[in-house]
């Protein structure tokens, strides 16, 4: 079995699941309880926060635990909108964001917020001049993803951060879900005000995530309740999931350079081999690209059919992002890049984890080739 859909989710590491099981069975206390069972859970929570903060190069209290990427993104967008609406009601984001950002923006639109969706170039990249042009006196937030989940383009986060440093009243949010544990961002240096992380994208478990909130920045909470997580995110903490996340992030970031270099080799191999196949067009640009994502189209073949055919060889890839693929829509990022609808509807995404090997890539290429051959007769128009 070859699992090449790691941008949708990753396989949790065994040692991460072991941690989860042990914490869930042995340290089941509520961290807010005042007795020693609660204290132990609280200690675990504190140590997790410390470990994650250290790995990300930030202060402990700048980390707030959430249920994952969607909550994190919603929390920042709606929290900032609610907290700072007196300052202005304009938000800048991009045309290629994850639905948890773009749909949250659409909801805010109904509440009277104006949203500017920045265009991208043919490589799927935002231009910092466009950000500058979009800034208005009533702009309160810029939200840009770090690594695009569909195509893999890395956005110019440092440049945008540098630009926004001149606008102290505009906050900067980065959806770091695809980047966390792979391409670190220096939150403090850039500077970034908010960043979203999700544990199951780096071999942790679903239902846990975190946001980074820069020291001193306020945010209206989405959830009202028991005032956990410095009043920013109420709800009893998922201690087992959080400890597991701390471990998963540590493992992911060990020997990172080495692992990324290896991944880049595999992606380069896939890119070269796939490009040789007739009718294949690679969409993922060569420059400014994440090491783990490769998006391509096989013209004339419906992506869904091809994905199933490839899956018959026990090779698992995806159509567009898992969050939009069930709706069977053309890939939003590709459309924004100016790719025509036919290509955008036939796009396939390969996304690797650090555990994938060159051997797997070789087998996957064979499986893709065979699948195309097999379908050729049936599908050619």
């Amino acid at each position: 079995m070859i699992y090449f859909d790691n941008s949708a989710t990753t396989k949790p590491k065994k040692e991460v699941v072991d941690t989860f099981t042990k914490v869930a069975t042995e340290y089941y206390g509520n961290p807010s309880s005042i007795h020693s069972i609660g204290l132990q859970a609280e200690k675990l929570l504190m140590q997790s926060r410390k470990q994650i903060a250290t790995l990300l190069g930030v202060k402990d209290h700048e980390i707030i635990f959430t249920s994952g990427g969607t909550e994190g993104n919603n929390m920042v967008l709606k929290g900032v909108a609610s907290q700072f609406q007196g300052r202005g009601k304009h938000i800048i984001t991009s045309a290629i964001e994850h639905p948890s950002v773009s749909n949250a923006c659409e909801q805010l639109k109904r509440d009277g917020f104006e949203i500017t969706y920045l265009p991208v170039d043919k490589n799927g990249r935002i231009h910092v001049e466009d950000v500058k042009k979009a800034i208005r006196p009533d702009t309160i937030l810029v939200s840009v993803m770090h690594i695009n989940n569909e195509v893999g383009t890395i956005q110019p986060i440092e440049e945008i951060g540098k630009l926004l440093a001149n606008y102290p009243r505009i906050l900067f949010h980065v959806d770091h879900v695809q980047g966390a544990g792979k391409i670190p961002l220096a939150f403090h240096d850039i500077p970034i005000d908010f960043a979203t992380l999700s544990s199951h994208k780096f071999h942790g478990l679903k239902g846990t995530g975190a946001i980074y909130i820069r020291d001193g920045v306020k945010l209206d909470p989405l959830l009202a309740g028991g005032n956990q997580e410095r009043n920013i995110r109420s709800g009893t903490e998922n201690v087992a999931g959080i400890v597991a996340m701390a471990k998963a992030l540590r493992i992911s970031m060990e020997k990172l350079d080495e692992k990324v270099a290896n991944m880049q080799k595999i992606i380069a191999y896939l890119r070269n081999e796939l490009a040789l196949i007739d009718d294949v067009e690679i969409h993922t640009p060569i420059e400014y690209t994440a090491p783990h994502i490769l998006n391509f189209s096989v013209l004339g073949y419906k992506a869904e059919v091809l994905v199933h055919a490839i899956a018959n060889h026990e090779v698992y890839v995806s159509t567009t992002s898992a969050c939009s693929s069930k709706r069977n829509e053309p890939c939003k990022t590709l459309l924004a890049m100016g790719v025509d609808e036919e290509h955008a509807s036939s796009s396939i995404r390969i996304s690797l984890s650090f555990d994938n090997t060159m051997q797997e890539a070789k087998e996957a290429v064979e499986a893709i080739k065979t699948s195309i051959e097999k379908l050729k007769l049936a599908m050619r128009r």
Partner: protein
Amino acid sequence: MIYDQILIRYGEISTKGKNRTFFVDKLRRNLKYVLNEYKNIKIRADRDRMYIQLNGEEWENIAGKLQKVFGIQSFSPVVKVSKDIEQVKEQALIIFQKLQASGKTFKVSTKRSDKEYPYDTNELNYLLGSHLLQNIDSLTVDVHHPDLELKVEVRKDAIYLTCEVIKGAGGMPVGSSGKAMLMLSGGIDSPVAGYLSMKRGLKLEAVHFYSPPFTSERSKQKVLDLGKKLAQVSGQFIIHIVPFTEIQQLIQEHVPENYTMTITRRMMLRITEEIRHRQEALAIVTGESLGQVASQTLESMFTINEVTNTPIIRPLVTMDKNDIIDVAREIDTLEISNRPYEDCCTVFTPAQPKTKPKRENAHKYEGYMDFEALIKKAVEGVETIIVNAGDSLEQSEFSDLF
């Protein structure tokens, strides 16, 4: 890797005449504790400087730790070269190349403590400066605001080259002024008092009063976490946890409400005095600031202080609360101190404590019970915890989980 050693310049030690060896030795021991996770380094000390041989360790990581250690005026990552001028030139060039000096401005400043060296400071500045200018493209001299400043120290044993000087924490090496007991409640003030007295070279052992079930395990944890922060300064920190429940209950029973606070403080001081005696310390440090709360009025101090003639050091006595908070923030204890758990001071606070308690009244109320026996019992029940700078308290308990 540009540098192979860190050169440390002593703070006030340099003025200490005959005791110099003692001070230097203290500093070296403290550094050994603070840096014990770096297994490859070697620390060498002489009268004027200390050297940490890096042997492959990253100097930036060590620098972060050094900045917290008292007794260091400043330090620099350096390259050690022999005194052959050609080698000095060559090494200076290597450093500048590694720092990508092309297009930048620079100056050379030489310090020559070896007065027998054939070149004087001006000659050296000139020789090295011109060598660099000749060999690096578009490098220019700017003696007022240089991008890079090559510092050259000519010492008896060798020449040391560096481009950076990092300010140390100043003060005197912890332990060089003797040992004292710190009364550590968990609030904002006492860790700051501890920090400031360590800066003057005191080695501290903390005394904390623990009253379960009136104070929770969390308040004890808070004190251990504070101890961990203070251990980053001294390498190691010892905390004596005193079981205090019984005494507090007795005081509540026997003493009129408005005097409970006064009597409690007197008891705490007596117990601390007893532990001080056992630990052979010579003073007691508290976080009291004049007039801050009822127990810290001059009258209260007069009445409470009566129970001991051991010197009581109050580093914060003249400081405003805001200034204390600033230091707490700086030394990273503020957040821990602000955790909202009851401690031994807050749990039994009377509604209207006496701000002007009298010694005679204190004597009278204390006469109703046998405190000597209780103090003995409390001191015998003390739990002593050693906190090391490097280790996290949870490590042993949870290490496999992370």
